[in-house]
């Protein structure tokens, strides 16, 4: 009954309804995402420990060390906040805020699974836009801009080199990534992520394996994780673009990387691994899609961590070469493939 009342209200006052839904969902989602991202940091440290024959955090919060991240957060909150004298102050202050705010923009359009009510699949998404795939991809790349803001404004040579590397890397992989999204959209006949998920009777990882590989590589690059972490290559340029950031500002930038990792993995799951698709589990059919979704997500996240601990870092010129000279032509080939196969399906 309440549900029908809400639907009625939504029909009458779509604008106000959107406003309320937006606020509530944003508040809930923001906290959920933050908590999940914190757990992700913890998961990474633990899983990395397992890969490396050590324990990882295990002293704070019982034997699993779950409160370790809480301690880190409290520590970062009580750190002094230093703005270097030479820094471009407004940009310096803005960079972490832009970074966090834009990740929220991505979160707004990304479906976080679905639930089945009365045999109907309801995707859990706030803004179910027609072009959400395009929008998400665009919003993800704003992250590189915030990294550039951080690096450029610090007036530190390490940061500056990190910023340039970040931009060069982002632009080298943005194009192949975009083309991959187009290829997927062509097969699904839609740019809406929800519809893309629903269109995957065959997972797109099988339908276009090249596209999956390209997208996965480009995604790791966008996230700046291991073989592609040149922007913060500790051994070359100290901490890259966040060299001069301290305390909570660093905390935000650092934390935002994990939020983006989470969101990026979700996007990968949606575009290529069938999202929440999977056989309906009889007894708990209500959350059966969620179970599939989370299983896939965890596998992708652990795979990302696995890649991180087992590959050496590329040199930055090799990264741009890989992007421009190999992945871009390959993604075009993949697009042609998608067109041909897509025609066949159509």
């Amino acid at each position, binding site marked *: 009954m309440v549900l029908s009342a809400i639907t009625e209200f939504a029909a009458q006052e779509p604008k106000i309804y959107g406003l309320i839904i937006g606020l509530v969902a944003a508040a809930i989602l923001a906290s959920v995402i933050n908590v999940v991202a914190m757990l992700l940091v913890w998961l990474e440290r633990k899983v990395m420990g397992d890969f490396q024959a050590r324990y990882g955090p295990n002293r704070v919060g019982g034997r699993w060390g779950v409160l370790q991240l809480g301690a*880190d957060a409290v*520590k970062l909150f009580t750190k002094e*906040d230093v703005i270097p004298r030479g820094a471009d102050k*407004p940009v310096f202050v803005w960079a972490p805020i832009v970074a966090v705010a834009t990740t929220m923009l991505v979160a707004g359009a990304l479906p976080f699974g679905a639930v089945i009510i009365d045999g109907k699949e309801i995707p859990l998404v706030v803004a179910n836009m027609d072009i959400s795939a395009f929008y998400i991809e665009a919003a993800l790349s704003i992250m590189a801009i915030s990294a550039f803001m951080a690096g450029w404004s610090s007036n530190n040579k390490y940061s500056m080199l990190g910023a340039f590397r970040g931009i060069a890397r982002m632009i080298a992989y943005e194009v192949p990534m975009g083309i991959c999204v187009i290829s997927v959209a062509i097969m699904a006949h839609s740019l809406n992520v929800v519809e893309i998920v629903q269109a995957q009777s065959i997972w797109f990882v099988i339908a276009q394996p090249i596209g999956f590989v390209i997208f996965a590589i480009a995604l790791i690059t966008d996230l700046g994780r291991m073989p592609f972490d040149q922007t913060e290559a500790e051994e070359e340029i100290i901490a890259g673009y966040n*060299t001069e950031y301290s305390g909570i500002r660093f905390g935000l930038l650092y934390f935002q990387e994990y939020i983006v990792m989470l969101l990026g993995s979700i996007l990968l799951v949606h575009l290529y691994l069938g999202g929440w698709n999977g056989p309906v589990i009889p007894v708990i059919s209500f959350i059966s899609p969620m179970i599939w979704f989370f299983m896939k997500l965890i596998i992708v996240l652990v795979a990302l961590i696995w890649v991180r601990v087992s590959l050496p870092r590329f040199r930055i010129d090799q990264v741009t070469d890989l992007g421009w000279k190999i992945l871009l032509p390959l993604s075009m080939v993949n697009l042609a493939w998608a067109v041909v196969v897509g025609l066949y399906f159509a």
Partner: protein
Amino acid sequence: MGISDVIPLPVAVDKELEKWTIWGRPLTDVWFTTTEKIHEIIDMGPIKNVLNWGRKNSLWFLMQPMGCCGVEMLVFGCPHYDCDRFGIFPRATPRQVDVMIISGYITRKYLPAIKNLWEQIPEPKWVMAIGECAISGGPFYDSYNIVNDTSKFFPIDVFVPGCPPRPEKFIEGFRALQEKIKQREDKRGY
């Protein structure tokens, strides 16, 4: 120290705000007294304990190997000893660390640089002298180039003897520092 440090507003706003008053008192004064009040509340106990719990369980140290102890510092971060268990791990930039480990001899040439690094660490910060060289000059106590008393330049919280101390001693030193932070007995009384 103005509002433009917190919220990205033009610096001109700062200047403007300085002219504002609340009940006849300048806004900046009000801000400072409020902050002081909050600090007093924090100092009263429970909140401070939570803060110190966070601080003591997240001690990131500056990666700065300086001698024999530097090798043990590296090993301290690796399996078998695994400092990550305690929430301790190395960072390369002083902006993001809490603990500076002086892991070797400080020479006349290096003293200004290391002092500068120490200055660039944001508060709250701690410093540990690890190894005989950092404590007293060690085997090089009479050298012409060694500054043999480190504690004159740095408010050292924990001394870890040994030449070099084994990685277990590093852990012991960090435990001692954690205990100090918890009891609020470190030199700066956080």
